[in-house]
């Protein structure tokens, strides 16, 4: 059986992120877990577009390519996705700072109880 290492690392990152989401109750830890998940998803998308022995989808100046090019579309999607995730991350961290100011702690479950 052939083992697809790229898939293993992608899915591994996603599962570790899910584990963190289930286990952790510190706001920064939740954000870190979600960051791991999104890195894993990006890796999954890129490895889906990969072709063994392929080259990067950039033509040399003389336009001769020896090997087939890998699929450019997933790369374009990931370029977009990375920036979007960073944007969410920046907003989430500002929210966390606000939360710390309001409640004095970042323990999500404590805040949850204080809400009631």
């Amino acid at each position, binding site marked *: 059986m052939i083992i*697809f290492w790229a898939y293993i690392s992608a899915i591994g990152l996603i599962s570790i992120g899910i584990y963190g989401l289930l*286990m952790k109750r510190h706001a920064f830890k939740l954000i870190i877990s979600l960051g791991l998940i999104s890195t894993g998803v990006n890796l999954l998308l890129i490895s889906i577009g990969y072709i063994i022995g392929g080259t990067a989808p950039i033509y040399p100046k003389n336009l001769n390519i020896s090997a087939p090019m890998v699929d*450019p*579309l997933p790369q374009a999607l990931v370029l977009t996705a990375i920036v979007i995730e960073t944007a969410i991350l920046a907003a989430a961290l500002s929210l966390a700072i606000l939360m710390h100011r309001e409640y004095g702690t970042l323990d999500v479950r404590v805040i949850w109880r204080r809400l009631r």
Partner: protein
Amino acid sequence: MIIRRIFAALFAIFFFISAYVLIADIGFGNNKMDDLVGKYYIENTIKDTTALNVVSTVVVNYRGLDTLGEVTVLFVASVSVGVLMARFKGSKLWNVSTTPIHITAGRILFPLIWIFGAYIFVHRHLTPGGWFPGGAVIASGVLLLMLAFKDYLPSSKLITFSESISGSLYVLVGLIGLAIGGYFLYDFVYRTYGIGTIGTLISGGFIPIVYTIIGVKDGVELSGILHHLSRDDTE
């Protein structure tokens, strides 16, 4: 607590195995190029746009609307950091002492850094890199200034204005395409006027124009985030 941990670990392992079994069948590294769209992009990029970097072409030209959305999301990020931090007014975040070395290095390096950033995003239709690093380099130039000159803080008006101008310019380029070619974000440079020779700086249709705009916007946006974050909260 320990039960919770075991449960979470089991769930993660279960997820890992099931997802791997399911996804491994898709086949890693096989040539899935009956992939209609990916194949079309690779075969037609040069004919359609004269750009060498297929990914850049996809990002800016074939799927330009996504990139407009992406730039908008980055704008949202900068604005949201601004609005959430708006309560905290004050001076600078860094209270590092500046030395003559800092100042001299800042004076010399700053223009070079900006030139390098501009070089990066102007050449994106020829070489790899994506548009983000160029903007990041520009923002790092601003950071250098902020570190070297203690009193220098980019005025928030300047940042807001350049943000809005560069964002509007991208939409305006799209609207020019609409006026000339009949479609929003139409590549009027190559497909209407035929400007560009393959492999030179002036090629790839409107990719260099768009990349310059979003590179500048990106740099401004990141400087904006730096600026919003660098307010001290001595209330």
